[in-house]
């Protein structure tokens, strides 16, 4: 083994977790291990952790995330029993020793056929048309904040996006970084009560504020050590009732009280907010409250 491999073998292994139903709390605890590093995106990760049984409706999305990991990579299934750190570290060392990297799940084809088409063989037509390099370009759309009609970017985000509760898939239209409209494509996976425990909910919000160390402390059940935690959240953001905003909900969680039982409908909660604000508002509701809100919305529709 070369020196590089030996060093790499002792590094904390960056893991990206695809979390299934009922697995959120255990996975978040498992990722606190000093031998693992929680990867923000699959590009950073060496191992993809498949926590629990991923439902059929999320299988395609799992394949997409899986294929985005750089080589060498490994996928591990974990059912929530025991500490996965050993298995993950072993898998990474095996990769360094020449074990086969996991192959793609999806076929090697562009989103749209483009090669050889168009004026320059780049797949595009004219100025904005066609599918240059496999994708069309964004077109202008209405804006709900300042009325400047620039390009609207539409994409589905989730079900394994780290800033959304696992399972929640949103179709989002953005103008710049402001959300113009959202619709729920798939609700969050049902999680047990543990996932909505105040300290875990608070840890998620703290992580969004860039306080990873404090978040880890809070997730382990201690009080956070950080400056300007509540103050960093704009007053009145996500105000459901008078004085009932994101800041107040974080305070309640940090004091160990459960958050609100009900969350508003996601389709009306996020539009008009800048992305960071939107994610703070969304994560200021516990996963079960969001799950309930989505289920009710589905029933009504």
């Amino acid at each position, binding site marked *: 083994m070369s020196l590089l491999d030996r060093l790499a073998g002792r590094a904390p292994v960056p893991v990206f977790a695809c979390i299934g139903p009922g697995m959120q709390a255990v996975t978040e605890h498992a990722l606190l291990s000093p031998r693992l590093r929680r990867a923000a995106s699959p590009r950073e990760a060496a191992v993809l952790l498949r926590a629990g049984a991923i439902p059929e409706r999320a299988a395609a999305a799992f394949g997409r995330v899986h294929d985005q990991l750089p080589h060498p990579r490994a996928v591990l299934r974990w059912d929530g029993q025991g500490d996965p750190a050993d298995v993950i570290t072993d898998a990474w060392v095996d990769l360094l020793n020449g074990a086969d990297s996991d192959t793609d799940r999806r076929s090697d084809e562009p989103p749209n056929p483009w090669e050889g088409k168009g004026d320059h063989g780049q797949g595009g037509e004219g100025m904005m048309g066609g599918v240059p390099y496999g994708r069309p370009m964004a077109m*202008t759309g209405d804006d709900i904040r300042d*009325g*400047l*009609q620039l390009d609207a970017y539409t994409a589905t985000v989730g079900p394994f996006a780290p800033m959304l509760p696992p399972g929640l898939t949103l179709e989002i239209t953005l103008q710049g970084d402001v959300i113009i409209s959202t619709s729920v494509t798939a609700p969050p996976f049902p999680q047990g009560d543990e996932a909505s425990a105040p300290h875990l909910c608070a840890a998620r919000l703290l992580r969004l504020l860039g306080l990873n160390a404090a978040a880890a402390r809070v997730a382990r059940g201690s009080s956070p050590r950080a400056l300007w935690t509540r103050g960093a959240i704009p007053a009145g953001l996500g105000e459901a009732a008078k004085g009932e905003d994101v800041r107040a909900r974080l305070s309640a969680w940090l004091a160990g009280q459960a958050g609100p039982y009900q969350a508003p409908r996601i389709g009306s909660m996020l539009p008009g907010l800048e992305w960071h604000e939107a994610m703070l508002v969304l994560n200021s509701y516990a996963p079960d409250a969001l799950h309930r809100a989505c289920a009710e919305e589905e029933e009504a529709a």
Partner: protein
Amino acid sequence: MTLTIVLLGASALIGIGLYGALSQQSFVMLMMGLELMLNGAILAIIGFWSLGLAGMPEGQLLAIIVMAVMAVEMALGFALIVAVYRKRQADMTEALGTLKE
């Protein structure tokens, strides 16, 4: 000798800038042409100041003024583009011709 080189370079920059300012359809690209001409002007000022005018302080001031002109031109130009885009969602110089309402 150096001064000649510098001034030839400056005239090349002004030439390219003029081409850009005249040929570009979009207002923003047109501004790029203007900026490039001002770039040539700065180069010429630097050359004259350093090699022909024995470092007159007014030369440096002139360079600063050229840059201030550029900043003013950019700020107002972009503000105009925003205003026009609001009205017509257009960024072409031609589109300005149809703005008479």
